[in-house]
């Protein structure tokens, strides 16, 4: 019963929570730059506006592909909150991203195509570590099932701190934060217009934004897995730590410049190998 409530809560509340976090992120960023910043509800105004704008369709598949991106992300998130197989969640997450890449490649804009190829590159950068995280959970708790992981007697982070650090590092790619914000751009980064989203407008863009909010909450869900154990207070701790991680990602976004694709790939793989690989090695020898 509690699983059904969690899944429903995710499906209904995740876009609202994601949008609020986005609004908060914009306010925090503005305060870091000594600006006042927009209202907390700005992402809702943006979505409302995007839905009310005239729909310019560049081709007849882009909207469908964006919808697929949203729906598949919702499935991945629902599976995580239902306590299903973590490995499956991560695979479905990558499938969702493939739809976004197809949506961007479907139009003729060179900027969108460049964004799509960079998005693939980003997948190459974060995918190894995401898989290692799943393996780490298996080695720590003996199961890939989220339901088993959260019922472990000790929090997984005790055994896999390296993987947590690595996941925080690569999460900047997923959250589309500088220095790894290569495939699309927000605020003043405009070296290739809007990258992936260049030819998306109105409703198409709004759907993509909603999907990103779902993804954001999904990722925070995975962060929670590191901390949650069978005690009730571990849930509180997990949410507090997620808040800290959220703040750190925003801080990192504001203090770093965007890197080149080679730096992205090498740095992510080095972190994967050092933080993730060593952690896995120790786990394999120890358990």
């Amino acid at each position: 019963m509690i699983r059904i409530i969690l899944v429903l809560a995710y499906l209904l509340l995740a876009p609202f929570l994601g949008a609020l976090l986005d609004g908060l992120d914009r306010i925090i960023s503005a305060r870091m730059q000594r600006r006042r910043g927009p209202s907390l509800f700005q992402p809702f105004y943006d979505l409302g506006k995007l839905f009310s704008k005239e729909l310019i369709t560049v081709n007849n598949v882009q909207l469908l592909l964006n919808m697929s991106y949203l729906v598949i992300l919702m499935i991945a998130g629902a599976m995580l909150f239902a306590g299903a197989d973590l490995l499956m969640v991560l695979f479905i997450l990558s499938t969702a991203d493939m739809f976004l890449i197809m949506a961007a490649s479907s139009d003729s804009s060179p900027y969108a195509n460049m964004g799509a190829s960079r998005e693939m590159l980003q997948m190459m950068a974060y995918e190894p570590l995401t898989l290692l995280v799943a393996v780490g959970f298996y080695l720590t708790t003996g199961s890939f099932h989220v339901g088993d992981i959260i019922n472990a007697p000790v929090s997984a982070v005790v055994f896999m701190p390296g993987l947590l650090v690595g996941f925080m590092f690569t999460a900047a790619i997923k959250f589309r934060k500088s220095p790894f914000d290569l495939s699309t751009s927000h605020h003043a980064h405009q070296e290739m217009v809007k990258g992936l989203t260049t030819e998306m407008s109105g409703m198409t863009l709004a759907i993509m934004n909603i999907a990103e909010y779902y993804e954001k909450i999904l990722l925070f869900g995975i962060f929670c897995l590191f901390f949650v154990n069978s005690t009730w207070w571990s849930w509180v701790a997990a949410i507090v730590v997620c808040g800290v991680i959220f703040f750190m990602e925003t801080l990192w976004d504001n203090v770093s410049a965007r890197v080149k694709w080679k730096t992205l790939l090498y740095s992510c793989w080095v972190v994967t190998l050092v933080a993730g690989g060593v952690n896995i090695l120790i786990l394999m020898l120890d358990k």
Partner: protein
Amino acid sequence: MNKVSKSPWLLHYDASSCNGCDIEVLDCLTPKYDIERFGIINTGDPFQADILLITGGINSQTERVVRQLYSQMPEPKVVVAVGICACTGGVFKECYNIKGGIDTVIPVDVYVPGCAARPESIIDGVVRALKVLDAKQAALKDSGR
């Protein structure tokens, strides 16, 4: 909540400006003026923009670019001409390659004169453009689109 003026995204194009007005436009983004507090984002993408902000007069090279940018923006949209060159052609009006102000090519909704236009007057112009934007949105809704 659906009001487009709550989240106006801005596209800035330099038609032939001396960069004086362009720098003042970018000034508006700095912490001192901070136009993001109105929800304004300086986007580089006409597909996602609501306000087209143009500096400089139209010359024979930028004419088709301005037409294309304008045609790529989804309705409702407004155009703000920033600086005296964008309004009328300014001191370059009589030049052989200058067609004149922005309104010789596309309809302009708000004129912001000045050489260079001050950040305060640019913000004033944009805020006035927001009212036009809302009126256009209401008109679109009435015509059933």
